[in-house]
Protein backbone atom coordinates (compact mmCIF):
# COMPACT_ATOMS: atom_id res chain seq x y z
CA UNK A 1 0.00 0.00 0.00
CA UNK A 2 1.38 3.36 -1.03
CA UNK A 3 1.88 5.79 1.82
CA UNK A 4 0.45 9.32 2.00
CA UNK A 5 2.17 12.23 0.37
CA UNK A 6 3.14 13.58 3.77
CA UNK A 7 4.67 10.32 4.83
CA UNK A 8 6.47 9.94 1.50
CA UNK A 9 7.93 13.40 2.07
CA UNK A 10 8.90 12.51 5.63
CA UNK A 11 10.68 9.34 4.46
CA UNK A 12 12.58 11.20 1.75
CA UNK A 13 13.70 13.84 4.25
CA UNK A 14 14.84 11.06 6.56
CA UNK A 15 16.96 9.47 3.83
CA UNK A 16 18.45 12.82 2.85
CA UNK A 17 19.27 13.53 6.49
CA UNK A 18 20.99 10.14 6.84
CA UNK A 19 23.04 10.84 3.71
CA UNK A 20 24.03 14.24 5.02
CA UNK A 21 25.24 12.78 8.32
CA UNK A 22 27.38 10.20 6.52
CA UNK A 23 28.77 12.71 4.03
CA UNK A 24 29.75 15.05 6.83
CA UNK A 25 31.26 12.32 8.99
CA UNK A 26 28.72 12.89 11.74
CA UNK A 27 28.91 9.17 12.51
CA UNK A 28 27.76 9.35 16.12
CA UNK A 29 24.59 11.12 15.04
CA UNK A 30 24.13 8.52 12.32
CA UNK A 31 24.32 5.78 14.98
CA UNK A 32 21.41 7.48 16.71
CA UNK A 33 19.29 6.77 13.65
CA UNK A 34 19.70 3.03 14.19
CA UNK A 35 17.66 0.68 16.35
CA UNK A 36 19.65 -1.47 18.76
CA UNK A 37 18.75 -4.58 16.75
CA UNK A 38 19.71 -3.03 13.43
CA UNK A 39 21.19 -5.17 10.68
CA UNK A 40 23.31 -3.47 8.05
CA UNK A 41 23.75 -5.85 5.19
CA UNK A 42 25.61 -5.60 1.90
CA UNK A 43 25.09 -8.91 0.10
CA UNK A 44 27.87 -10.36 -1.98
CA UNK A 45 27.73 -11.59 -5.59
CA UNK A 46 23.95 -11.76 -5.72
CA UNK A 47 21.17 -9.94 -3.95
CA UNK A 48 19.65 -12.93 -2.17
CA UNK A 49 22.92 -14.44 -0.98
CA UNK A 50 22.74 -16.61 2.11
CA UNK A 51 24.54 -15.28 5.18
CA UNK A 52 25.05 -18.77 6.56
CA UNK A 53 26.74 -20.07 3.47
CA UNK A 54 28.37 -17.27 1.53
CA UNK A 55 30.89 -14.55 2.23
CA UNK A 56 29.32 -11.15 2.80
CA UNK A 57 30.57 -7.70 1.90
CA UNK A 58 28.99 -6.49 5.13
CA UNK A 59 26.73 -7.99 7.75
CA UNK A 60 26.89 -5.84 10.86
CA UNK A 61 24.79 -5.16 13.91
CA UNK A 62 24.77 -2.10 16.12
CA UNK A 63 27.93 -3.00 18.05
CA UNK A 64 29.92 -3.67 14.91
CA UNK A 65 28.74 -0.38 13.40
CA UNK A 66 29.63 1.46 16.57
CA UNK A 67 33.09 -0.15 16.50
CA UNK A 68 33.35 0.95 12.90
CA UNK A 69 32.70 4.56 13.85
CA UNK A 70 35.37 4.29 16.56
CA UNK A 71 37.80 3.07 13.92
CA UNK A 72 36.83 5.86 11.56
CA UNK A 73 37.62 8.39 14.28
CA UNK A 74 40.85 6.77 15.45
CA UNK A 75 43.84 9.06 14.85
CA UNK A 76 45.99 6.14 13.66
CA UNK A 77 43.54 4.72 11.14
CA UNK A 78 45.57 4.70 7.91
CA UNK A 79 42.48 4.59 5.71
CA UNK A 80 41.31 7.95 7.04
CA UNK A 81 44.43 9.99 6.33
CA UNK A 82 43.03 11.85 4.56
CA UNK A 83 39.47 10.60 4.90
CA UNK A 84 37.72 9.72 1.66
CA UNK A 85 35.09 12.27 0.66
CA UNK A 86 31.71 10.88 -0.24
CA UNK A 87 28.42 11.99 -1.75
CA UNK A 88 25.27 9.93 -1.50
CA UNK A 89 22.72 10.36 -4.28
CA UNK A 90 19.28 8.99 -3.52
CA UNK A 91 16.45 8.62 -6.05
CA UNK A 92 13.39 6.52 -6.88
CA UNK A 93 12.18 6.48 -3.28
CA UNK A 94 9.17 4.29 -2.60
CA UNK A 95 7.65 3.52 0.78
CA UNK A 96 4.95 1.14 1.89
CA UNK A 97 3.54 -0.03 5.18
CA UNK A 98 5.40 -3.03 6.54
CA UNK A 99 4.74 -5.32 9.49
CA UNK A 100 4.08 -4.03 12.98
CA UNK A 101 3.85 -0.38 12.00
CA UNK A 102 7.20 -0.46 10.23
CA UNK A 103 7.80 1.11 6.86
CA UNK A 104 9.43 -0.69 3.99
CA UNK A 105 11.43 1.77 1.93
CA UNK A 106 13.35 1.28 -1.27
CA UNK A 107 15.50 3.76 -3.09
CA UNK A 108 18.25 3.81 -5.65
CA UNK A 109 21.61 4.81 -4.33
CA UNK A 110 24.75 6.10 -5.96
CA UNK A 111 27.70 6.75 -3.68
CA UNK A 112 30.72 8.60 -5.02
CA UNK A 113 33.99 8.22 -3.14
CA UNK A 114 36.91 10.54 -3.81
CA UNK A 115 40.25 9.27 -2.59
CA UNK A 116 43.84 9.18 -3.81
CA UNK A 117 43.02 11.46 -6.72
CA UNK A 118 40.42 9.04 -8.03
CA UNK A 119 36.65 9.00 -7.89
CA UNK A 120 34.90 5.64 -7.72
CA UNK A 121 31.17 5.13 -7.68
CA UNK A 122 29.06 2.45 -6.11
CA UNK A 123 25.59 2.17 -7.68
CA UNK A 124 22.84 0.10 -6.16
CA UNK A 125 19.52 -0.07 -4.40
CA UNK A 126 18.88 0.28 -0.68
CA UNK A 127 16.08 -1.44 1.12
CA UNK A 128 15.17 -0.21 4.58
CA UNK A 129 12.87 -1.20 7.37
CA UNK A 130 12.09 1.94 9.34
CA UNK A 131 10.56 1.69 12.81
CA UNK A 132 9.16 4.48 14.92
CA UNK A 133 10.92 4.84 18.28
CA UNK A 134 10.39 7.76 20.66
CA UNK A 135 8.52 9.66 17.99
CA UNK A 136 11.26 9.37 15.34
CA UNK A 137 11.97 6.98 12.50
CA UNK A 138 14.86 4.63 13.14
CA UNK A 139 16.61 2.20 10.81
CA UNK A 140 15.84 -1.38 11.84
CA UNK A 141 17.52 -2.82 8.79
CA UNK A 142 19.34 -1.53 5.77
CA UNK A 143 20.25 -3.79 2.89
CA UNK A 144 22.35 -2.38 0.11
CA UNK A 145 22.24 -4.24 -3.17
CA UNK A 146 25.22 -3.06 -5.20
CA UNK A 147 25.08 -3.79 -8.90
CA UNK A 148 28.85 -4.21 -8.56
CA UNK A 149 28.66 -6.79 -5.80
CA UNK A 150 30.08 -9.45 -8.09
CA UNK A 151 33.15 -7.35 -8.95
CA UNK A 152 36.36 -6.74 -7.01
CA UNK A 153 35.55 -3.76 -4.78
CA UNK A 154 37.65 -0.97 -3.42
CA UNK A 155 37.13 0.04 0.24
CA UNK A 156 33.49 0.88 0.85
CA UNK A 157 32.32 3.67 3.13
CA UNK A 158 29.14 3.26 5.13
CA UNK A 159 26.67 3.32 2.25
Amino acid at each position, binding site marked *: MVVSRDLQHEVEQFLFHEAELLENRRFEEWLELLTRDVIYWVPNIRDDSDISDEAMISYEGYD*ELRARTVRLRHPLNPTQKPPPRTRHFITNVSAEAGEGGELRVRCNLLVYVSKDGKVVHHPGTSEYRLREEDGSWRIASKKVYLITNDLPLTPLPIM
Partner: protein
Amino acid sequence: MTTDVQTGIPDLIGESRVHRSIYTDPAIFELEMKRIFSRTWVFIGHESEVPHAGDYKTDTVAGQPIVMTRDEEGAVRVLFNRCRHRGAKVCNLPYGNSSTFSCLYHGWTFSNKGDLIAVPSRQLCPANFDPGNYPLVALPRVESYRGFVFGSLSAEGTPLEEHLGRATHYLDCLIDRSPEGEIQVCKPVKYSYPANWKLQIENYSDNIHARFTHEAAFAARRPIESGAVERYGAGSQQRSDLRMGINRVLSHGDSMTDYRGDRPQMAFAGRDPEYVSIMTEKYGAEQAQAIADMDIHVIIYPNLLMHSAYCHYRVIKPVSVDQTVIVGYPFKLKGAPTELNEAFVQASSEHISASGAVQVDDMEAFARVQEGLAVEQDEWVSYVYGIEEPQVPNEYGEIELGMMTEVPALHQHREWLRLMSRD
Protein backbone atom coordinates in the same frame (compact mmCIF):
# COMPACT_ATOMS: atom_id res chain seq x y z
CA MET B 1 67.90 1.82 -14.06
CA THR B 2 67.18 0.87 -17.64
CA THR B 3 65.81 -2.59 -17.57
CA ASP B 4 67.27 -5.00 -19.93
CA VAL B 5 64.77 -7.27 -18.31
CA GLN B 6 66.05 -10.57 -19.62
CA THR B 7 69.64 -10.16 -18.49
CA GLY B 8 69.21 -7.88 -15.50
CA ILE B 9 67.01 -10.13 -13.36
CA PRO B 10 69.68 -11.51 -10.98
CA ASP B 11 70.76 -7.97 -10.07
CA LEU B 12 67.29 -7.13 -8.77
CA ILE B 13 67.33 -9.48 -5.77
CA GLY B 14 69.98 -8.92 -3.11
CA GLU B 15 70.67 -10.69 0.16
CA SER B 16 68.50 -8.29 2.13
CA ARG B 17 67.14 -5.89 -0.44
CA VAL B 18 65.21 -5.97 -3.70
CA HIS B 19 65.10 -3.48 -6.51
CA ARG B 20 62.06 -1.24 -6.77
CA SER B 21 61.51 -2.21 -10.40
CA ILE B 22 60.15 -5.63 -9.42
CA TYR B 23 57.10 -3.73 -8.18
CA THR B 24 56.96 -0.98 -10.79
CA ASP B 25 58.26 -2.16 -14.16
CA PRO B 26 55.50 -3.36 -16.55
CA ALA B 27 58.07 -5.39 -18.51
CA ILE B 28 58.94 -7.33 -15.36
CA PHE B 29 55.26 -7.91 -14.70
CA GLU B 30 54.86 -9.39 -18.18
CA LEU B 31 57.82 -11.64 -17.56
CA GLU B 32 56.32 -12.72 -14.21
CA MET B 33 53.18 -13.79 -16.05
CA LYS B 34 55.28 -15.96 -18.36
CA ARG B 35 57.88 -17.30 -15.98
CA ILE B 36 55.97 -17.51 -12.71
CA PHE B 37 52.22 -17.65 -13.32
CA SER B 38 52.49 -19.59 -16.59
CA ARG B 39 55.08 -22.01 -15.32
CA THR B 40 55.03 -23.00 -11.69
CA TRP B 41 52.07 -24.63 -9.94
CA VAL B 42 49.39 -22.04 -9.26
CA PHE B 43 46.31 -22.60 -7.16
CA ILE B 44 43.17 -22.81 -9.31
CA GLY B 45 40.32 -23.69 -6.98
CA HIS B 46 38.85 -26.27 -4.67
CA GLU B 47 36.97 -29.35 -5.78
CA SER B 48 34.09 -28.49 -3.41
CA GLU B 49 33.36 -25.45 -5.59
CA VAL B 50 32.13 -27.90 -8.24
CA PRO B 51 30.59 -30.68 -6.11
CA HIS B 52 28.25 -32.23 -8.69
CA ALA B 53 28.64 -33.48 -12.23
CA GLY B 54 28.20 -30.55 -14.59
CA ASP B 55 29.15 -27.91 -12.01
CA TYR B 56 31.60 -25.34 -13.22
CA LYS B 57 33.26 -22.10 -12.24
CA THR B 58 35.02 -19.68 -14.53
CA ASP B 59 38.18 -17.87 -13.52
CA THR B 60 41.51 -16.74 -14.90
CA VAL B 61 45.06 -18.04 -14.64
CA ALA B 62 47.88 -15.69 -15.59
CA GLY B 63 45.18 -13.40 -16.96
CA GLN B 64 43.81 -16.13 -19.27
CA PRO B 65 40.21 -17.34 -18.99
CA ILE B 66 39.65 -20.88 -17.74
CA VAL B 67 36.74 -23.01 -16.70
CA MET B 68 36.99 -25.60 -13.94
CA THR B 69 34.36 -28.30 -14.46
CA ARG B 70 33.31 -31.60 -12.98
CA ASP B 71 32.55 -33.96 -15.82
CA GLU B 72 29.90 -36.67 -15.89
CA GLU B 73 32.38 -39.23 -14.54
CA GLY B 74 33.15 -36.99 -11.58
CA ALA B 75 36.61 -35.87 -12.68
CA VAL B 76 37.57 -32.22 -12.16
CA ARG B 77 39.00 -30.65 -15.29
CA VAL B 78 40.52 -27.29 -15.99
CA LEU B 79 40.09 -26.08 -19.57
CA PHE B 80 40.90 -22.84 -21.31
CA ASN B 81 37.66 -20.94 -21.79
CA ARG B 82 38.19 -20.21 -25.45
CA CYS B 83 36.26 -21.50 -28.46
CA ARG B 84 38.52 -23.41 -30.83
CA HIS B 85 36.83 -21.75 -33.79
CA ARG B 86 37.13 -17.96 -33.55
CA GLY B 87 38.22 -17.53 -29.96
CA ALA B 88 35.15 -16.42 -27.98
CA LYS B 89 34.81 -17.47 -24.37
CA VAL B 90 32.38 -20.38 -24.39
CA CYS B 91 31.30 -20.11 -20.74
CA ASN B 92 30.28 -16.68 -19.56
CA LEU B 93 28.81 -17.09 -16.09
CA PRO B 94 30.87 -17.17 -12.90
CA TYR B 95 29.29 -20.42 -11.68
CA GLY B 96 26.73 -22.86 -12.95
CA ASN B 97 25.87 -26.36 -13.98
CA SER B 98 25.91 -27.53 -17.56
CA SER B 99 27.10 -30.65 -19.31
CA THR B 100 27.92 -28.65 -22.44
CA PHE B 101 29.22 -25.22 -23.41
CA SER B 102 27.85 -23.66 -26.59
CA CYS B 103 29.69 -20.80 -28.15
CA LEU B 104 27.47 -17.75 -28.57
CA TYR B 105 29.18 -16.82 -31.82
CA HIS B 106 28.77 -19.72 -34.27
CA GLY B 107 27.27 -22.35 -32.04
CA TRP B 108 30.18 -24.76 -31.63
CA THR B 109 29.27 -26.92 -28.68
CA PHE B 110 31.70 -28.65 -26.36
CA SER B 111 31.12 -31.27 -23.67
CA ASN B 112 32.33 -30.37 -20.20
CA LYS B 113 35.25 -32.69 -20.88
CA GLY B 114 36.14 -30.31 -23.69
CA ASP B 115 35.18 -32.51 -26.67
CA LEU B 116 33.68 -30.68 -29.63
CA ILE B 117 30.33 -32.42 -29.97
CA ALA B 118 28.38 -30.18 -32.35
CA VAL B 119 29.33 -27.95 -35.27
CA PRO B 120 26.38 -26.22 -36.95
CA SER B 121 26.28 -26.19 -40.78
CA ARG B 122 28.79 -28.98 -40.87
CA GLN B 123 28.07 -29.53 -44.60
CA LEU B 124 29.75 -26.20 -45.29
CA CYS B 125 33.01 -27.31 -43.66
CA PRO B 126 35.75 -29.04 -45.66
CA ALA B 127 35.14 -32.73 -46.30
CA ASN B 128 38.04 -33.73 -44.07
CA PHE B 129 36.96 -31.48 -41.16
CA ASP B 130 37.38 -33.52 -37.99
CA PRO B 131 35.82 -32.19 -34.77
CA GLY B 132 38.21 -34.48 -32.91
CA ASN B 133 40.94 -31.98 -33.76
CA TYR B 134 39.16 -29.15 -31.95
CA PRO B 135 38.62 -29.99 -28.29
CA LEU B 136 38.80 -27.18 -25.74
CA VAL B 137 42.44 -26.94 -24.73
CA ALA B 138 43.14 -28.33 -21.28
CA LEU B 139 45.68 -26.76 -18.97
CA PRO B 140 48.92 -28.63 -19.66
CA ARG B 141 49.07 -29.93 -16.08
CA VAL B 142 46.35 -30.17 -13.45
CA GLU B 143 46.82 -32.01 -10.16
CA SER B 144 45.09 -31.78 -6.85
CA TYR B 145 46.04 -32.31 -3.25
CA ARG B 146 43.14 -33.28 -0.99
CA GLY B 147 40.71 -31.20 -3.03
CA PHE B 148 43.03 -28.24 -3.67
CA VAL B 149 43.38 -28.04 -7.44
CA PHE B 150 46.56 -26.60 -8.86
CA GLY B 151 47.44 -26.05 -12.49
CA SER B 152 50.48 -25.28 -14.51
CA LEU B 153 50.59 -23.76 -17.96
CA SER B 154 53.85 -25.58 -18.54
CA ALA B 155 53.83 -29.19 -19.71
CA GLU B 156 57.15 -29.87 -18.00
CA GLY B 157 57.94 -29.68 -14.33
CA THR B 158 57.94 -31.26 -10.91
CA PRO B 159 54.80 -33.16 -9.84
CA LEU B 160 52.56 -31.17 -7.50
CA GLU B 161 53.20 -33.04 -4.25
CA GLU B 162 56.92 -32.97 -4.74
CA HIS B 163 56.75 -29.26 -5.48
CA LEU B 164 54.59 -28.53 -2.42
CA GLY B 165 56.89 -30.56 -0.21
CA ARG B 166 56.43 -29.71 3.44
CA ALA B 167 53.53 -27.37 2.62
CA THR B 168 51.35 -30.49 2.28
CA HIS B 169 51.73 -31.01 6.02
CA TYR B 170 50.23 -27.62 6.72
CA LEU B 171 47.47 -28.16 4.17
CA ASP B 172 46.75 -31.38 6.10
CA CYS B 173 46.67 -29.41 9.36
CA LEU B 174 44.07 -27.03 7.93
CA ILE B 175 41.95 -29.72 6.27
CA ASP B 176 42.07 -32.06 9.26
CA ARG B 177 40.44 -29.42 11.46
CA SER B 178 37.34 -30.82 9.77
CA PRO B 179 36.02 -33.81 11.70
CA GLU B 180 35.49 -35.48 8.31
CA GLY B 181 38.83 -34.38 6.91
CA GLU B 182 37.18 -32.32 4.21
CA ILE B 183 36.39 -28.68 3.69
CA GLN B 184 33.50 -27.01 1.87
CA VAL B 185 34.46 -23.79 0.15
CA CYS B 186 31.95 -20.91 0.11
CA LYS B 187 31.37 -18.18 -2.45
CA PRO B 188 34.11 -15.54 -2.18
CA VAL B 189 34.40 -11.80 -1.67
CA LYS B 190 36.66 -9.88 -4.01
CA TYR B 191 38.57 -6.68 -3.65
CA SER B 192 41.19 -4.84 -5.62
CA TYR B 193 44.04 -2.59 -4.64
CA PRO B 194 46.23 -0.27 -6.73
CA ALA B 195 49.58 -1.92 -6.10
CA ASN B 196 51.76 -4.87 -7.00
CA TRP B 197 50.69 -8.44 -6.17
CA LYS B 198 53.87 -9.25 -4.24
CA LEU B 199 53.02 -6.70 -1.58
CA GLN B 200 50.12 -8.90 -0.48
CA ILE B 201 52.09 -12.14 -0.31
CA GLU B 202 54.91 -10.44 1.59
CA ASN B 203 52.43 -8.84 3.96
CA TYR B 204 50.94 -12.19 4.88
CA SER B 205 54.12 -13.30 6.64
CA ASP B 206 54.76 -9.85 8.12
CA ASN B 207 53.76 -9.69 11.77
CA ILE B 208 55.63 -6.48 12.39
CA HIS B 209 53.23 -4.15 10.63
CA ALA B 210 50.10 -5.04 12.60
CA ARG B 211 50.62 -2.65 15.51
CA PHE B 212 51.06 0.24 13.14
CA THR B 213 48.83 -0.49 10.19
CA HIS B 214 45.99 -2.06 12.18
CA GLU B 215 46.18 0.00 15.35
CA ALA B 216 42.75 1.53 14.85
CA ALA B 217 41.15 -1.85 14.16
CA PHE B 218 42.62 -3.28 17.36
CA ALA B 219 41.82 -0.21 19.42
CA ALA B 220 38.11 -0.07 18.71
CA ARG B 221 36.07 -1.86 21.35
CA ARG B 222 35.10 -5.31 20.07
CA PRO B 223 37.29 -4.38 17.20
CA ILE B 224 36.93 -7.03 14.60
CA GLU B 225 34.71 -9.88 13.65
CA SER B 226 32.62 -9.40 16.74
CA GLY B 227 29.82 -11.76 15.72
CA ALA B 228 32.18 -14.56 16.68
CA VAL B 229 33.18 -12.72 19.84
CA GLU B 230 29.55 -12.49 20.83
CA ARG B 231 29.07 -16.20 20.42
CA TYR B 232 32.37 -17.51 21.72
CA GLY B 233 33.74 -14.75 23.94
CA ALA B 234 36.89 -12.76 23.31
CA GLY B 235 39.25 -15.22 24.95
CA SER B 236 41.93 -13.66 27.05
CA GLN B 237 42.94 -10.10 26.31
CA GLN B 238 44.38 -9.78 22.83
CA ARG B 239 48.13 -9.34 23.04
CA SER B 240 49.58 -6.53 21.04
CA ASP B 241 53.20 -7.61 20.94
CA LEU B 242 52.77 -10.92 19.06
CA ARG B 243 55.86 -12.52 20.52
CA MET B 244 54.80 -16.07 21.30
CA GLY B 245 54.44 -17.16 17.70
CA ILE B 246 56.93 -18.43 15.19
CA ASN B 247 57.50 -18.44 11.46
CA ARG B 248 58.68 -21.37 9.42
CA VAL B 249 60.15 -21.01 5.97
CA LEU B 250 59.34 -24.04 3.81
CA SER B 251 60.47 -24.56 0.22
CA HIS B 252 59.76 -22.71 -3.04
CA GLY B 253 58.80 -19.45 -1.32
CA ASP B 254 56.24 -21.13 0.92
CA SER B 255 56.10 -20.33 4.62
CA MET B 256 53.82 -20.50 7.61
CA THR B 257 53.22 -18.52 10.77
CA ASP B 258 52.04 -20.21 13.93
CA TYR B 259 50.55 -17.60 16.26
CA ARG B 260 50.55 -20.03 19.19
CA GLY B 261 47.96 -18.31 21.31
CA ASP B 262 48.95 -14.77 20.43
CA ARG B 263 45.51 -14.01 19.02
CA PRO B 264 42.94 -15.72 21.25
CA GLN B 265 40.21 -13.43 20.01
CA MET B 266 40.62 -14.73 16.49
CA ALA B 267 41.09 -18.40 17.39
CA PHE B 268 37.52 -18.87 18.61
CA ALA B 269 36.93 -22.44 17.42
CA GLY B 270 38.64 -23.77 20.55
CA ARG B 271 35.86 -22.19 22.61
CA ASP B 272 33.11 -24.18 20.88
CA PRO B 273 32.57 -27.09 23.30
CA GLU B 274 30.61 -29.14 20.77
CA TYR B 275 33.39 -28.87 18.19
CA VAL B 276 36.09 -29.67 20.76
CA SER B 277 34.10 -32.67 21.91
CA ILE B 278 33.68 -34.00 18.35
CA MET B 279 37.42 -33.61 17.81
CA THR B 280 38.21 -35.18 21.20
CA GLU B 281 36.51 -38.40 20.15
CA LYS B 282 38.85 -38.57 17.21
CA TYR B 283 42.11 -37.24 18.62
CA GLY B 284 41.91 -37.25 22.43
CA ALA B 285 41.41 -34.15 24.56
CA GLU B 286 44.84 -32.58 24.35
CA GLN B 287 45.35 -32.88 20.61
CA ALA B 288 41.74 -31.92 19.93
CA GLN B 289 42.12 -28.67 21.83
CA ALA B 290 45.35 -27.89 19.99
CA ILE B 291 43.66 -28.50 16.63
CA ALA B 292 40.67 -26.38 17.63
CA ASP B 293 42.89 -23.53 18.85
CA MET B 294 45.11 -23.69 15.79
CA ASP B 295 45.93 -20.23 14.51
CA ILE B 296 48.24 -20.47 11.52
CA HIS B 297 48.84 -18.61 8.29
CA VAL B 298 50.09 -20.69 5.38
CA ILE B 299 51.53 -19.18 2.22
CA ILE B 300 51.79 -21.29 -0.90
CA TYR B 301 53.73 -19.28 -3.41
CA PRO B 302 52.76 -17.53 -5.62
CA ASN B 303 49.02 -17.13 -5.13
CA LEU B 304 47.47 -18.93 -2.12
CA LEU B 305 47.19 -17.54 1.42
CA MET B 306 45.45 -19.61 4.08
CA HIS B 307 44.05 -18.62 7.47
CA SER B 308 43.09 -21.34 9.95
CA ALA B 309 41.44 -19.29 12.69
CA TYR B 310 38.84 -17.74 10.39
CA CYS B 311 38.81 -20.66 7.96
CA HIS B 312 39.40 -18.82 4.76
CA TYR B 313 41.91 -18.66 1.98
CA ARG B 314 42.74 -15.84 -0.37
CA VAL B 315 43.83 -16.14 -3.95
CA ILE B 316 46.11 -13.47 -5.38
CA LYS B 317 45.30 -12.42 -8.92
CA PRO B 318 47.82 -10.04 -10.47
CA VAL B 319 46.10 -7.71 -12.95
CA SER B 320 48.94 -5.39 -13.91
CA VAL B 321 52.18 -4.21 -12.34
CA ASP B 322 50.24 -1.86 -10.06
CA GLN B 323 46.82 -3.50 -9.82
CA THR B 324 45.87 -6.68 -7.95
CA VAL B 325 42.66 -8.51 -7.19
CA ILE B 326 42.28 -10.67 -4.10
CA VAL B 327 39.53 -13.28 -3.96
CA GLY B 328 38.78 -14.43 -0.41
CA TYR B 329 36.97 -17.73 0.10
CA PRO B 330 35.61 -18.69 3.51
CA PHE B 331 35.45 -22.43 3.98
CA LYS B 332 33.51 -24.70 6.29
CA LEU B 333 34.83 -27.71 8.16
CA LYS B 334 32.64 -30.66 7.19
CA GLY B 335 31.25 -32.33 10.27
CA ALA B 336 31.82 -29.30 12.52
CA PRO B 337 28.82 -27.68 14.29
CA THR B 338 26.68 -25.56 11.97
CA GLU B 339 26.96 -22.54 14.24
CA LEU B 340 30.73 -22.69 14.21
CA ASN B 341 30.84 -22.92 10.44
CA GLU B 342 28.50 -19.95 10.18
CA ALA B 343 30.76 -17.98 12.53
CA PHE B 344 33.73 -18.79 10.27
CA VAL B 345 31.87 -17.51 7.23
CA GLN B 346 30.84 -14.33 8.97
CA ALA B 347 34.19 -13.61 10.62
CA SER B 348 36.22 -14.24 7.52
CA SER B 349 34.01 -12.18 5.29
CA GLU B 350 34.22 -9.23 7.67
CA HIS B 351 37.98 -9.67 7.88
CA ILE B 352 38.64 -9.81 4.14
CA SER B 353 35.82 -7.66 2.77
CA ALA B 354 36.32 -4.25 1.19
CA SER B 355 33.84 -3.07 3.80
CA GLY B 356 35.60 -4.80 6.71
CA ALA B 357 38.04 -3.87 9.40
CA VAL B 358 41.48 -5.27 8.67
CA GLN B 359 42.23 -5.89 5.05
CA VAL B 360 41.30 -2.33 4.11
CA ASP B 361 44.23 -1.14 6.26
CA ASP B 362 46.64 -3.35 4.34
CA MET B 363 45.24 -2.17 1.02
CA GLU B 364 46.00 1.37 2.14
CA ALA B 365 49.57 0.35 3.00
CA PHE B 366 50.04 -1.36 -0.37
CA ALA B 367 48.82 1.73 -2.21
CA ARG B 368 51.20 3.98 -0.26
CA VAL B 369 54.14 1.62 -0.95
CA GLN B 370 53.34 1.60 -4.65
CA GLU B 371 53.23 5.41 -4.68
CA GLY B 372 56.49 5.69 -2.74
CA LEU B 373 58.27 3.29 -5.05
CA ALA B 374 57.85 5.81 -7.85
CA VAL B 375 60.93 7.51 -6.38
CA GLU B 376 63.71 6.55 -8.78
CA GLN B 377 66.50 8.11 -6.73
CA ASP B 378 65.98 5.53 -4.01
CA GLU B 379 66.25 2.25 -5.85
CA TRP B 380 66.18 -0.40 -3.14
CA VAL B 381 63.58 -1.85 -0.80
CA SER B 382 65.24 -2.92 2.46
CA TYR B 383 64.60 -5.87 4.75
CA VAL B 384 66.13 -5.57 8.20
CA TYR B 385 64.04 -7.43 10.78
CA GLY B 386 65.26 -10.83 11.89
CA ILE B 387 67.78 -11.23 9.12
CA GLU B 388 70.65 -12.13 11.46
CA GLU B 389 68.70 -14.91 13.10
CA PRO B 390 70.38 -18.27 12.31
CA GLN B 391 68.68 -20.10 9.47
CA VAL B 392 69.20 -23.74 10.31
CA PRO B 393 66.79 -26.25 8.76
CA ASN B 394 65.05 -28.57 11.21
CA GLU B 395 64.39 -32.26 10.64
CA TYR B 396 61.61 -31.39 8.17
CA GLY B 397 63.80 -28.99 6.23
CA GLU B 398 61.95 -26.00 7.68
CA ILE B 399 63.78 -22.89 8.81
CA GLU B 400 62.23 -21.89 12.11
CA LEU B 401 62.27 -18.19 12.94
CA GLY B 402 60.85 -15.80 15.48
CA MET B 403 57.65 -13.87 15.04
CA MET B 404 59.09 -10.53 14.01
CA THR B 405 61.00 -11.33 10.87
CA GLU B 406 61.22 -10.29 7.25
CA VAL B 407 63.08 -13.45 6.27
CA PRO B 408 60.03 -15.28 4.80
CA ALA B 409 59.61 -12.39 2.34
CA LEU B 410 63.27 -12.72 1.35
CA HIS B 411 62.67 -16.41 0.65
CA GLN B 412 59.73 -15.43 -1.56
CA HIS B 413 62.09 -13.21 -3.51
CA ARG B 414 64.57 -16.07 -3.85
CA GLU B 415 61.85 -18.25 -5.36
CA TRP B 416 60.91 -15.32 -7.59
CA LEU B 417 64.51 -15.13 -8.76
CA ARG B 418 64.72 -18.89 -9.34
CA LEU B 419 61.59 -18.86 -11.50
CA MET B 420 62.41 -15.61 -13.28
CA SER B 421 65.99 -16.63 -14.11
CA ARG B 422 65.01 -19.56 -16.28
CA ASP B 423 64.13 -19.10 -19.95
